[in-house]
């Protein structure tokens, strides 16, 4: 479903991704771990279409389509979702307004009817209930004054509402308490199906106890230097990255 082939990307003339190969099949969960600054967020941004990255080589195929030429909103329409490492504040725009506009944009892209206010409220009530998220958050402006954990939870709520086929979680677990961690895991597990896939970027083995990955990859200096099953995550937690950073250099 996602095929990344020999992907190279620069930021301001500096090579950050230096030949990434990664294939994700429907139904799979992949985890990417790696030291700070190794290019994990950059990879997530390039897949989702953020400006400011120069893809110098390689391609990203999503369900057989090259998505590198698509606008970010088209990729979202195709089912790519990114939970941000740092979710963004949008003052004055309520969560409900934001999510309704997002859902309707995506539905429109997919040729589905847009939902009216009533229908949308039904969806949102169902999802907040499933995730155990308080409704108070809905009336507030998007992420404004939210605690770190609340922002992450809010991203997971958006994910649950948009029902993406490929969810990328960029350190969504960082800074979360146990309850929030479970919310995140519930959100991901709610989406799990033979058709959907998840890419989890994390520093901690902890999340992977809840979201069990099929594959774990180590990213160092812009390359995947090792891949394995979930035991690799445990190994990394014990030994750190020293071995790989030396190797990639």
């Amino acid at each position: 479903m996602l095929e990344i082939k020999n992907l190279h990307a620069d930021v301001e003339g500096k090579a950050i991704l230096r030949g990434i190969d990664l294939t994700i099949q429907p139904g799979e969960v992949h985890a990417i771990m790696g030291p700070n600054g190794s290019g994990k967020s950059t990879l997530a941004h390039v897949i989702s279409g953020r400006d400011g990255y120069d893809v110098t080589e390689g391609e990203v195929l999503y369900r057989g389509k090259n998505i590198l030429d698509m606008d970010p909103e088209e990729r979202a329409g195709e089912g790519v979702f990114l939970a941000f490492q740092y979710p963004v504040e949008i003052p004055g725009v309520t969560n409900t307004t934001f999510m309704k506009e997002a859902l309707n944009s995506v539905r429109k892209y997919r040729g589905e009817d847009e939902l009216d206010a009533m229908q949308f409220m039904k969806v949102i009530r169902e999802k907040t209930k499933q995730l155990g998220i308080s409704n108070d958050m809905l009336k507030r402006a998007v992420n404004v004054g939210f605690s770190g954990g609340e922002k992450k939870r809010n991203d997971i709520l958006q994910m649950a509402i948009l029902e993406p086929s490929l969810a990328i979680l960029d350190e969504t677990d960082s800074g979360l308490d146990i309850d929030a961690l479970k919310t995140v895991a519930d959100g991901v597990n709610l989406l799990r199906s033979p058709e959907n896939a998840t890419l989890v970027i994390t520093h901690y083995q902890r999340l992977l106890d809840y979201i069990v990955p099929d594959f774990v990859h180590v990213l160092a200096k812009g390359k995947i230097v090792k891949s394995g099953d979930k035991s690799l995550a445990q190994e990394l937690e014990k030994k750190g990255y020293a071995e790989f950073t030396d190797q990639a250099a």
Partner: protein
Amino acid sequence: MAATVETVDQVRALADDKYKYGFVTDIEADTAPKGLDESTVRFISAKKEEPEWLLEWRLKAYRQWLTMPEPEWAKVDFPPIDYQDAYYFSAPKTTEAPKSLDEVDPELLRTYEKLGIPLREQEMLAGVAVDAVFDSVSVATTFRHKLAEKGVIFCSISEAIKDYPDLVKKYLGSVVPYGDNKHACLNSAVFTDGSFVYIPKGVRCPMELSTYFRINAANTGQFERTLIIADEGSYVSYLEGCTAPMRDENQLHAAVVELIVLDDAEIKYSTVQNWYPGDENGVGGIYNFVTKRGACRGKNSKISWTQVETGSAVTWKYPSCILQGDNSVGEFYSIAITNNMQQADTGTKMIHLGKNTTSRIIAKGISAGKSQSTYRGLVRMGAKAKGARNYTQCDSLLIGDKCGAHTVPYIESRNSSAQIEHEATTSKISEDQLFYCRQRGIGEEDAVALVVNGFCREVLQQLPMEFAVEAQKLVGISLEGSVG
């Protein structure tokens, strides 16, 4: 350009001839000849069958206008206006006053509909009375009866001059004197229509009053005159909205709005202004030079101005409050959006005269393209305004790096017990915000509209419901093409 100059010279020559031969304007004509002189003023007054005092007032205004220089302190830049190259009175073809919408020229109704002003639907849905101004003559007025039951007067200013001469004589020019500024002076001399509202003592106007102003015939300057009086303990919410069709010649619009609020009364005046801003190179577009001022004459009176300014090539507009009555309250909520080559110099004046008067200013400026937007505000605390307070917040949002936003606050305090607070911010629309929206599926232009609407929320919230929805759409429409 050369051709225009030539024409102008010819017109001037003609005008001179008129005096030489004692030329008198043909009162039977539907349109006054191009240009402006005393005979134009007399023609308008005669057409409107006005009383002598009003003609005299107009003539005084005209004579003063001749002597006044153009105001040049605003941060706007445009070629000098050729006042002789415009018509000052014109009427649509169907001048017989229609008694109902059925009698209105279907062509006009269709134009209204294109602009999203379906009169019929509005009548039924919103319970809004519409006094639609087409060119200079009112072509449809609705809900007159329902209002009459409460004693509310809502009619065109021309009708008011005929039917309620005492009220008009008492209040016209009492807030904006004819010599107030060059544009107000011109308006006083040649105003052709506009609205008149009187809310009697203790009456809460049962519906929002709404007027759609439009400009249609080529080269017709619009000089609307609005006068609203809220008698003791009354309340009214007045909506003013405007749109204009595409055109390629600059048009002058110099309106005057006067509000008078007596003890314990309140006027809420909301505007959505969407006149043709010119094309992306700044060609065409309306010059909008408006004088809007309200007097809180009574104690505990209140005026609240809310404006959403998205149109016009040049906007020059400072809705103001004179807070005379003790404990009176003035509010100004403003959104000014400029795109492409638009220029806006807008703001407010809060003149505190009475004790414990308070004012609140929330101004949001959004600039995109190569546009320039200036907030210009004056807060004056008079010597007797003990305990007066003002809070001002000015936020500017820039889209792109070729536009400009400027904030020019003037503060004058002659009173040590007065408190003035001023906050100002300038920010750029952030890439992070746009990417966040787009990653969620929201297209780039919709994302800009969403973020900008969020930025303006405090002001949009002040608008009546139906208007707020329209205004939100307008925010998006006016920023189209500002990114990417």
